[in-house]
């Protein structure tokens, strides 16, 4: 069941009925009542309850300025919550930072590197900062990470000379320096061309297939729809929906729309076939397709002598669902 927290609903973490029993032990990230109020009174994140199942690809959606990055910064111990608590890989943050973060790869708010160092030297620098990274394998791990994002050939080039897409890839390579249990990727495809975006998507799927949990934030819904198993939707600092893609789709069945001069006759055919929620218009009829094959429905209509002018199957995209949830489009600056 999709859990949608309406305006003013303040109950604790809504129960998830999903494919995995979401006990806290099965979650890579758990947030309980997480709240961040910045100095000046601005509430960036407000009473956030979040559970990210282990092994999922979790899409963290929301318009710009809805509190996604602030949440990620709290999860990574960069800023401390005003109230509430969060756990990453079973360790409370920011207290358990030292034991949890070596197993977490992160891209936070775009790439940041030393411009006068090469890509390889930059990654070695970040690797040196990880107290649990083995220096003997550093070069090999850095090389592997660079190859994985397709930067092997540019390893010796200065970061200053990298294009925006290469910088973004280097940031992702930085998240892949060691064996990770969790990847936190904040807008990983920002600045990438369509080809690069596709590559990042397939890389994320590949990483996830090894059992690594991927927590990816985005304001691009289509992107999330294509690679995520689970979704959380933020709106002005609050989580307004959370669940698997299938759950969120439930109740938003594909509908069939028949354009015809004989709507009443068409409606009776659809009713006979057992389609739910038949709605008759002036010169069209709509109904939920359910499990029916559209071609069969169409053949029945024609067979019964209904003049079919147009026949469409309408699948509501997540975009439409979430515009309803957040009250705005996703590609809009919030």
């Amino acid at each position: 069941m999709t859990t949608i927290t309406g305006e003013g609903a303040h109950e604790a973490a809504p129960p998830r009925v999903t494919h995995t029993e979401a006990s806290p032990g099965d979650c890579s990230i758990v947030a309980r009542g997480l709240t961040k109020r910045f100095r000046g009174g601005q509430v960036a994140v407000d009473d956030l309850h979040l559970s990210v199942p282990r092994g999922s690809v979790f899409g963290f959606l929301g318009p710009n300025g809805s509190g996604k990055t602030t949440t990620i910064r709290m999860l990574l111990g960069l800023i401390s919550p005003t109230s509430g608590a969060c756990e990453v890989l079973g360790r409370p943050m920011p207290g358990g930072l030292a034991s949890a973060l070596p197993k977490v790869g992160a891209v936070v708010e775009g790439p940041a590197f030393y411009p006068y160092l090469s890509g390889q030297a930059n990654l070695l620098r970040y690797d040196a900062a990880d107290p649990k990274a083995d220096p003997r394998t550093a070069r090999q791990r850095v090389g592997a990470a660079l190859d994985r994002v397709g930067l092997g050939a540019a390893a010796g080039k200065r970061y200053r000379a990298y294009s925006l897409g290469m910088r973004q890839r280097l940031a992702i390579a930085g998240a892949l320096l060691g064996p990770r249990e969790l990847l936190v990727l904040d807008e990983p495809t920002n600045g990438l061309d369509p080809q690069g975006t596709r590559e990042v998507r397939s890389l994320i799927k590949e990483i996830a297939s090894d059992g690594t949990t991927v927590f990816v934030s985005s304001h691009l819904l289509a992107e999330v729809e294509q690679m995520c198993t689970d979704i959380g939707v933020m709106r002005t600092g609050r989580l307004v929906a959370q669940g698997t893609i299938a759950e969120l789709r439930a109740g938003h069945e594909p509908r069939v729309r028949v354009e015809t001069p004989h709507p009443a006759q068409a409606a009776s055919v659809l009713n006979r076939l057992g389609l739910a929620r038949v709605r008759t218009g002036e010169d069209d009829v709509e109904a939920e397709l359910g499990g029916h094959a559209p071609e069969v429905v169409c053949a029945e209509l024609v067979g019964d002598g209904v003049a079919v002018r147009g026949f469409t199957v309408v699948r509501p995209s997540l975009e439409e669902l979430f515009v309803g949830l957040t009250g705005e489009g996703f590609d809009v600056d919030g």
Partner: protein
Amino acid sequence: MSTVETENSTSSAPTAADTPPEPGTGTATRGAAIGDASVAGGARSGAVARAAGAGHRDRSDASPGAARAVLRLVGSELGLTFRRPRNIAMLILLACVPVVIGVALKAFGSDEETPAIVTQVAGNGLMLTFLSLSMLVQLLLPLAVGVVAGDSIAGEANAGTLRYLLTAPAGRTRLLAVKAVNIGVFGLAACAVVAVSGLITGLVMFPVGPVTLLSGTTVPIMDGVLRVLIVTGYSAVGMAALGLVGLAVSTLTEVPIGAVAATVVTVVFSQVIGAIPQLGPVRPYLLTTWWSSFDGALRDPIATDVMGQGLLVFAAYALVFGAIAWGRFSGRDITS
């Protein structure tokens, strides 16, 4: 498209349940897995056993491992500092000053009004080192150290690299300590560059022999070199104390140039205060007052009381500003 998604979501779900990520393989190669082994749930018993094995192995060398990791980060930090073109340029500039002084003295000689130490250079090349350090320790050396110290945290914050270092995770206290060490080493390097350049220039341009000290006694040349080392070390400690002031300032802002300027202004301000006779009672508490006190090493016996007091003031500054830096940095929200 939508059917693909549905398949995707259902197929990856069992993957998550059946094959949990393998912390054993990860932690075994990544060192200290002690926490892992004790916290990991029973469902992952196989992985737990492996992690426990790894943890056990690591436990014996946990602290040397941690020390090695700190050394690695120090090495990375030093590499960054000493490969940075800006810092190299500053060191080269510092190295040039003794040469310029030497050439000037050689070319124009000295008259009655020149201070004793200057005329002594003409008699003994070794004195050029002392002269150079005493000229540079009040402005150019503090400037160089102020640039590196002021930039240390603020520069990383400004570039955004700080957030990646901290999520590595470098650890806030650990990173701050490494930064402090780095500043100290840079201060020492800057002083050493001046000393070495002064020594070489002195050896090449002036006669070198037994050294006549400020107190009038003459000591053998090796004793003189030893005193050069003492003076260099003393200056380096003074610069390190300033470095911690700069580090503290650096934790207060995300604008590196602001932190650098503030650090240098601190130096100039305290020199101005020190120059006002009416504010005499404040002088012993100023950092700048003690930087030139290394001329105690040019007396026989070495004026350990003055230099000791200087070192004490340096230590106090380092302690206070180190604590300020830590207090500020350990709890600060990193929003850059």
